[in-house]
Every structure is written in structure tokens, then in C-alpha cells.
């Protein structure tokens, strides 16, 4: 419901959104009105204003879903000077349509961008050029009920077999090992990504989302067989197809389920559901194929300059400003995420941030997430296939053959 309503509001907002920007004005369209993200962004804007009193910053904050729709209108009709968007394949349509400004020059010359963003640079790159500056990213992994694990004497699993036997213990005690809500599909992609990254590694995963290997490839089949094992021995909550990721927190909070493959943004929601820091903890998705270099999911949020921007000089100044370690540190402390600048300070008081930083900074490769790594149409069909597989694992062959067909059509 919200997405439809907000889309309409977004369209309207896109139409109304200020057209009267003068030189010296810097218009920024940001996409998250939730309290913490808004506060983090606004603090960065205030710091920029203090450093550049001559620039008049005008901020439009829109709802995330509304922004996704509105951006297609405002980029061509009335471009702001800076807009929030996502890297990876999500930026591809705008880059290819020439609607984002190439800022490779900034990446080459800026003291921070040229040195402290090595890990994230590939995801901001398309056709060998850089198109935006990331301000935040977050780790994925398995969040679990530390109190339940302790009660049944389960250790944080490091390997696949340890995970499976932890599941056996949980099931023997009447607890569903994993919760998930796949109504909006993408949560299932998180599980797939990790299984594939752990079974086949980063290179194969990348090749798959780049359309270079088939879904019926033996290596991908192996991933699905592992998933089948996970479904059999671990099992997920029933009715996950009718739940959103927030709905799926209910069984996690009331102790019916003990683990959740999720991104770090979910921690706030666990706490809202009444769980304390002592009750929840995090571990990296266990290794499956021994000796494989560990790659992680770490989706980034970024800011871009539309090619129709009127004040590109100040926009570049702003992007360079938010790449600074102290700005990235403060911003991500507020929103509880990780700063992409490797020199930025992290919030040591937050155990999830400390573990998350450890997880991603030592990773051999960073995936953006299935729906950002694969083109939109492939992602949409792929995620439907993952959901169908989770409900009907016996249809594996049919689903994979179908995804092959989609792949053939999408990557021409």
C-alpha cells in the first residue's frame, strides 16, 4: 500500500519540486525521511554550510519508494544538483542514458576519493568511469538470538556443518532456525547471494550476475543443492511468502525463530521489537566450500550529480566534502552504518558496527546485492525464482531453466 501511495505522492512531489534555483544554490534531493538517516544527512549539510557559507544549500527529502519513481522524472525535467541513488547495476540505466555526470576527475584528484575508497570503487564504476560518491554501506550476515543460543549451548557456527548441527539442536527444541519474510522477494536474494558466495566464491557469483554463466551451470546447481539442504535441515518460518522483512521480526522477537539472514539496518527494528543488545548478536555467514576466499554483501548508498545539474562546481565541492573521514564517520555513527572511507572513524560502542567493519574490511570481495548486481529484469525474475524454490524445492530444474531463458533475453 505504502509503495503505491508514496509513488503517487512522489510523482506530485517531483512535479512541485522547486524549479527556481539560482547560481550559488545547491539543490540536493535526498531519499530517506526516517529520523536517523535524515539527521545524519542534515548534519553533513550543516557542516558543509559552515565550511562554504557562500553556497545556499536547498534540501528536498523524499520517501525512498517515492524517490525511486520521481528520479526518472526529475533527472530529465528539472534536475537537482545532487541526488541520492544506488551504485552497481541500479545506476546503469541513468549512466547509459547520459543522465549522470562523469566524476572520474574528482575520483582521480580528490585526496580522499583517490586513496581511501579502494574497496568500494569498483561498484561506483561503469565503463571505466566513476559516477557517484558513496556515503554509507552496511554489512550482511546472520543475526541471531544470543540468549537462545546460550540456553541450548550453541556456539556461533563457523562452518556449514556447524550451522546445520546448530539447526538440528534448535529444531529438537521446537525452535524454527531461520525467520524470513519473502513477500517483497529481495530477502530471499540475500540468502541466495551468501550461499553462492560461500559455495562458489566471488568470481563465479559476479560472472553469474553479469550473465556470463548460466543458472543451470553445475556450480550454481551446487548452490541450490546447498540451499535445499538448508531448507531441509534448517528450515525457515512457515508463511514467509506473506510476510515483509519487518513482519518476519515477530517470530524472531518472540523466540519462535533464532536466526535471520539480514543487513545491519535491521538492528534498529529488532530493538524496536523489544530485544536488547544482550539478546541479539551477529556472525558472518559460515563457510561452505573450504578454502574459498570470503566475500561479503555490502550494499552502498551514494550521491550522484545529474548531468542536467545547474551548479556542478558546488556539487563537486559537496561530494568531495562528504568523502572526508570525519564527515563520513559522524554521518554513519548517526545512522548506525559503516563509512566507505577506510580512514573514517567508526562507532566503537556499537558491537554490530565493530563486527561489521571487521567483516567487510577483511573481505576478499564485496557484492552489492543480487538486485543491484544483476540487471533489473533479471533480478526481478531471479528473486521470484528464489521464492518459488524456497516454497517448492522440487521445482529446482524448472526454475533454473526458466532463469536461463530470462538471462538469454536480458543480456543481449
Amino acid at each position, binding site marked *: 500500500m505504502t509503495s503505491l501511495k508514496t509513488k503517487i505522492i512522489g510523482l506530485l512531489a517531483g512535479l512541485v519540486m522547486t524549479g527556481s534555483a539560482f547560481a550559488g544554490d545547491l539543490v540536493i534531493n535526498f531519499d530517506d525521511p526516517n529520523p536517523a538517516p535524515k539527521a545524519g544527512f542534515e548534519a553533513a549539510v550543516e557542516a558543509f554550510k559552515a565550511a562554504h557559507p557562500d553556497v545556499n544549500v536547498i534540501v528536498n527529502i523524499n520517501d525512498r519508494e517515492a524517490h525511486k519513481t520521481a528520479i526518472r522524472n526529475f533527472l530529465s525535467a528539472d534536475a537537482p544538483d545532487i541526488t541520492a541513488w544506488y551504485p552497481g547495476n541500479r545506476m546503469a540505466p541513468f549512466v547509459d542514458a547520459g543522465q549522470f555526470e562523469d566524476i572520474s576527475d574528482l575520483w582521480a584528484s580528490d585526496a580522499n576519493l583517490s586513496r581511501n575508497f579502494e574497496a568500494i570503487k569498483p561498484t561506483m564504476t561503469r565503463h571505466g568511469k566513476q559516477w557517484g560518491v558513496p556515503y554509507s554501506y552496511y554489512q550482511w550476515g546472520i543475526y541471531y538470538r544470543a540468549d537462545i543460543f546460550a540456553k541450548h549451548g550453541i556456539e556461533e557456527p563457523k562452518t556449514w556443518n556447524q550451522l546445520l548441527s546448530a539447526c538440528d539442536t534448535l529444531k529438537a527444541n521446537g525452535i524454527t532456525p531461520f525467520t524470513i519474510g519473502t513477500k517483497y522477494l529481495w530477502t530471499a536474494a540475500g540468502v541466495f547471494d551468501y550461499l553462492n558466495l560461500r559455495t562458489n566464491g566471488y568470481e563465479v557469483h559476479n560472472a553469474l550476475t553479469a550473465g556470463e554463466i548460466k543458472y543451470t551451470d553445475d556450480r550454481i546447481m551446487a548452490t541450490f543443492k546447498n540451499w535445499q539442504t538448508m531448507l531441509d535441515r534448517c528450515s525457515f518460518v512457515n508463511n514467509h511468502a506473506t510476510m515483509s522483512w519487518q513482519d518476519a521480526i515477530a517470530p524472531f522477537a518472540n523466540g519462535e525463530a533464532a536466526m535471520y539472514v539480514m543487513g545491519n539496518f535491521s538492528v534498529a527494528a529488532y530493538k524496536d521489537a523489544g530485544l536488547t543488545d544482550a539478546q541479539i548478536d551477529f556472525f558472518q555467514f559460515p563457510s561452505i566450500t573450504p578454502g574459498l576466499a570470503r566475500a561479503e554483501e555490502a550494499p552502498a548508498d551514494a550521491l550522484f550529480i545529474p548531468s542536467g545539474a545547474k551548479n556542478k562546481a558546488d556539487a563537486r565541492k559537496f561530494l568531495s566534502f562528504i568523502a572526508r573521514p570525519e564527515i563520513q564517520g559522524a554521518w554513519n555513527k548517526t545512522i548506525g552504518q559503516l563509512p566507505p572511507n577506510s580512514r573514517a572513524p567508526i562507532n566503537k560502542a556499537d558491537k554490530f558496527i565493530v563486527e561489521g567493519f571487521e567483516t567487510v574490511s577483511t573481505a576478499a570481495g564485496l557484492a552489492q546485492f543480487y538486485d543491484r548486481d544483476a540487471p533489473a529484469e533479471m533480478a*526481478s525474475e531471479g528473486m521470484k525464482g528464489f521464492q518459488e524454490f524456497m516454497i517448492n524445492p522440487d521445482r529446482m530444474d524448472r526454475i533454473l531453466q526458466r532463469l536461463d531463458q530470462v538471462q538469454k533475453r536480458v543480456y543481449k
Partner: protein
Amino acid sequence: MNPETNSDQSQSWHRANRQKIAPQKIAPWLFLAPALLFFAVYVILPIFQSLWISLYAWDGIGARQWVGSGNYVELFDDYRFYTALKNNIIWLVLYMLAVPAGLFVALFLNQNIWGMRFYKSMFFFPFVISQVVVGLIFTWFYNPNFGIIGQVWQFFGATPPSILGDERFVTYGIIFAGLWPQIAYCMILYLTGLNNVSSDQIEAGRLDGAKGWRMLRYVILPQLWPATFLAIVVTVIGALRSFDMIAIMTQGGPYGSSNVLSYFMFEQALSEYGFRMGYGSAIAVILFLIMLIFISYFLWVMYQDEKRG
């Protein structure tokens, strides 16, 4: 009236009268003009635009690429299209239940007892609230964990079905939710129809010994034909454009099994992972052709009625 035939009239009268007649001819067009303009711009033109766009591969922002019938070839080879089409047919058939159900409720409510206005407004209630709210209410209603369905099943010690999460039940679950307001709509049409049923004919029928079913079948129903026709028209159109319920309750899921053409079109052309404008337009064209069959039939029936009346 034709002023030219009156030879006694002076030239000046002719002129004056002509000036009077001209506005009489223009006036209806003047009044129609705004509606015609909007109809042309927002209905007729987009139909042809959709036809045109359906011949391209286009993401909405980049360059268009001519693919001719490519989108249609792909569509007719797309299992998702057949899932949506099949669901549309199920919608059409089952949604029709709203017509007899609405008639039944209307007959039941067409009595003079104390508090009838209250009962009528209660039955009409689902039509007044937004489809979005209806969808949400039924989503909770069907929830196996905390919904009524779940509670009832658990009371009997059974595992509750996941109606919206099971490809076998999901479409029926949504249609059932959609029937609730649709029955109320048909009921209102019949209630107004029943107001116009002539009491003389009922009297006459009663004198001739008709009662119960025969009275309904041979005296009342024929007089309700205009209401029935209208109820069928709005129900067919409602079934074909079913969208809100699906968007709210399942988003076409699980894995596309509750999709219908209108939502499939939205998903392909406008949703987060869509923006295949050409393909979406091709779906729109097919949906339009299906609707055209019904619409032309309805228009033909109405035209026949006009001719007779």
C-alpha cells in the same frame, strides 16, 4: 423549424433568426468541448500511444529501439502472460457471483422493518471504504498467525492454510476479498431497481396466483433488467481492471502466481524492477482488446435497447 420556407418574413428577420439558430447548433458542442478535449487527450490519444510504444523496446529514459512485433512475440511465449490471463478469467467468472449475491441481499433488505436503514448502510459499508482498506483487512483476516482464519484453524487443532502464500489458493483468496465490496455495489444497483418495480404488476401477478420463485422469475426480474445489465457491466469491468487488491495483498505473488494482466502490465512498465515500457504497452494493448470485446457487446446491447425504447 425552417425560416426559409416562410416567404412573408423580411430579410432582417431571416438574418436575426439565423444568428439565433447558429448558437443553438454550436451550443451542445461548446458544452461537450471540454469533455471531448479531455477524452481525446487522456483516453483516445494514449490508446494510440500505447499501440505505438508497444512496437519499441524502451526503458522510459534512454533511446527507443524499434522491435516491431517483437514484444508481442515475446508476450505470447511468456508463461507469466498465461498465468495472468488464466487468473483474469478466474476473476471474470467468480466475480460474476457478485450479481446474484447482490440481488439476494437487495431482496432481503427490501422490506419495511424497524432499523432497515441501518442494516442497509451496514451492507453498503464495504463499498464506501477504499479498496486498499479492504485489501489490508483481508490480508490480516487471512494471516495464519494472528488472523481469524489462523485462530479458527488453531482452535480445531489444525495447521492453518497460508491462503495468500500458496499458489493454489491465493487468487481465490483475493477474489473473495474483492467480492465483498462488489456485492455491495450490485446490491445498491438492485435496491434502486426494486424501488422502480411497479406495484400494479405485482398486484396483478398476485391475483393470477404467482408467488415466491415464479413471482421473482416472471414479474420482478424482467423489471430489474436495467439494474442487472448495469451490475453485469460494472462487474465485468471491475474484474478486468482488478489491480488494487492484488497490489496490496500480494503484489502478484507468491512468485507471480496471483498476477493479472493489469498488475503484470504495471510490474513490467512501472514497478521498481520494471521500466520495460514497450513490453508493458504490449500487455496494455492485449488487455484493451479483451476489454473491447466486452465493451462493444455492452454498447451493442444498449444500442438495441435504445432502438426499442
